[in-house]
């Protein structure tokens, strides 16, 4: 996952004049089982931002990111993924989704490598055999979360924190430019949290977009360029602490998303943008 490889991958697609707005929801409403979970959310997330969605249990955090991905239909309002409604979105290779937990399913064992390699699915055609670059991406993803030595173990044998790392590695294997993570720190021990922070630092330095839901940020806090607080299905705070700390240098960022800051127009990280 070298920055240059990622940059070429992205520039091919983003050469189109479309503005690099990763997620755009306006007036987003979601009702689940008759309960209004999101009650009119307006949100624009620009490519390259590192956004944390915070809030108490039941505030609608997970619902928001799942609605942004089109996993839950909106009962009102609109949402777009890179300028396209999720139902018509085609560039799914751009998205790396990390769900809350590894589902055990019916209990058929699968090794760490099998699960991580399945993250290449959006990059591999239906009949295409695994190429060296596929294997290399899987190896890099395993190394990034420090699970190379456990690659042959069944995922069911791992601890909760290690399983979380498997899910992150699965997303990494697809080499997406946008990560969406649902509570990546929940139920994860301190060591795994630091590991996650290190992995995310690498991604942020390469200019990837990160949208994560968190109960508490812990070691991730220095990476976040913007935090959004949800309460009762509404955005109550939208805070960009970016400028008060120069602690997230982003070498190579300009090449990846040349227009990111032109569009946002915000005062964030002026030093890094030019």
């Amino acid at each position: 996952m070298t920055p240059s490889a990622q940059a070429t991958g992205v520039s091919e697609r983003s050469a189109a004049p479309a503005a690099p707005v990763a997620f755009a929801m306006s007036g987003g409403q979601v009702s689940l089982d008759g309960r209004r979970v999101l009650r009119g959310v307006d949100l624009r997330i620009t490519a390259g931002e590192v956004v944390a969605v915070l809030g108490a249990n039941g505030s609608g955090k997970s619902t928001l990111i799942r609605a942004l991905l089109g996993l839950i239909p909106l009962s009102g309002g609109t949402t777009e993924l890179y300028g396209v409604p999720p139902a018509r979105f085609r560039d799914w290779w751009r998205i790396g989704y990390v769900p809350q937990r590894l589902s055990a399913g019916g209990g058929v064992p699968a090794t760490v490598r099998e699960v991580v390699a399945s993250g290449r699915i959006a990059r591999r055609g239906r009949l295409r055999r695994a190429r060296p670059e596929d294997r290399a991406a899987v190896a890099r993803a395993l190394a990034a979360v420090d699970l190379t030595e456990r690659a042959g173990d069944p995922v069911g044998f791992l601890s909760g924190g290690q399983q979380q790392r498997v899910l992150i590695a699965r997303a990494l294997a697809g080499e997406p430019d946008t990560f969406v993570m649902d509570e990546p720190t929940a139920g994860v021990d301190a060591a795994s949290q630091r590991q996650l922070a290190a992995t995310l630092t690498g991604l942020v330095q390469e200019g990837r977009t990160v949208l994560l839901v968190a109960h508490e940020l812990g070691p991730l806090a220095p990476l976040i360029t913007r935090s959004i607080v949800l309460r009762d299905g509404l955005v109550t705070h939208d805070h960009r602490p970016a400028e008060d700390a120069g602690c997230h240098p982003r070498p190579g960022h300009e090449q990846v998303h040349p227009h990111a800051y032109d569009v946002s127009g915000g005062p964030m990280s002026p030093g890094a943008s030019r």
Partner: protein
Amino acid sequence: MIEMLQFDFMVRALTAALLVGLAAPAVGVFVVQRRLALLGDGIGHVALTGVALGFLTGTAPVLTAVVVAVLGAVVIELVRARGRTTGDVALALLFYGGIAGGVLLIGLAPGGSNSTLTSYLFGSISSVTTEDVWVIAILTAFVLGVVAVFGRELFVLCQDEEVARVNGLPVRFLSLLIAITAALTVVIAMRVVGLLLVSALMVVPVATGQQVTRSFTATMLLAMLLGVVSTVGGLTTAFYAGVAPGAAIVLLALAGFAVALVAGRFVRRGRVAGLERGRVPATMEAGP
């Protein structure tokens, strides 16, 4: 073994048994991972109406069973995708309808009676015709082809449907594909073990395999091997011991499961202990 092969009907039966032993666990591993272990049973019930419809209309029962089982599988999948709690009851209603419909229709068929259905409910592998073997061979090729072409996508789908969606996979199509492939497997296996035991061939070898394997691929391959050992072994036993082939096949598969359950305990325990041992130095290195 040689002696058994002198009979043409046994050659046909063994061919059918071999194909079923391969196909059923190959689909079964996805069905089990998707928590649809009872799907095969449901489709089996529905297929009975198809069999009876064949007798009523003078068409080959295998063909009408294919049509009705596939339709049933599509309905089951649509119900599953739509609801959660009400789905259970809706499926149960469908299954009762399948059995009742079969019994009703066979009564209307000229010369048909419940005993006609018995050979489909419990299997009658010794009466498999050459035409049956061809139908079974074609369906098996289709089933194995689906697994070969769509296996990786089905793995993602069965692991986590939302992740499959975010990877841009055609989730609805793949879900229908699993259901339809399972329906075809039911019809393939119908003549060998009977509709009431069809699901056993999809589920038991997988359940056995996962006691001792580490990976999904290994589970699938071992399940297919166990499937073939059960069907061919059960049929051979039935030939020499003069017992019902379908029952012998399923009981042999279950015996394999019991053995694997005990063996797996020891394998797992040894492996976990091994992992613990391997982990100790690592943690000590990481320490101060």
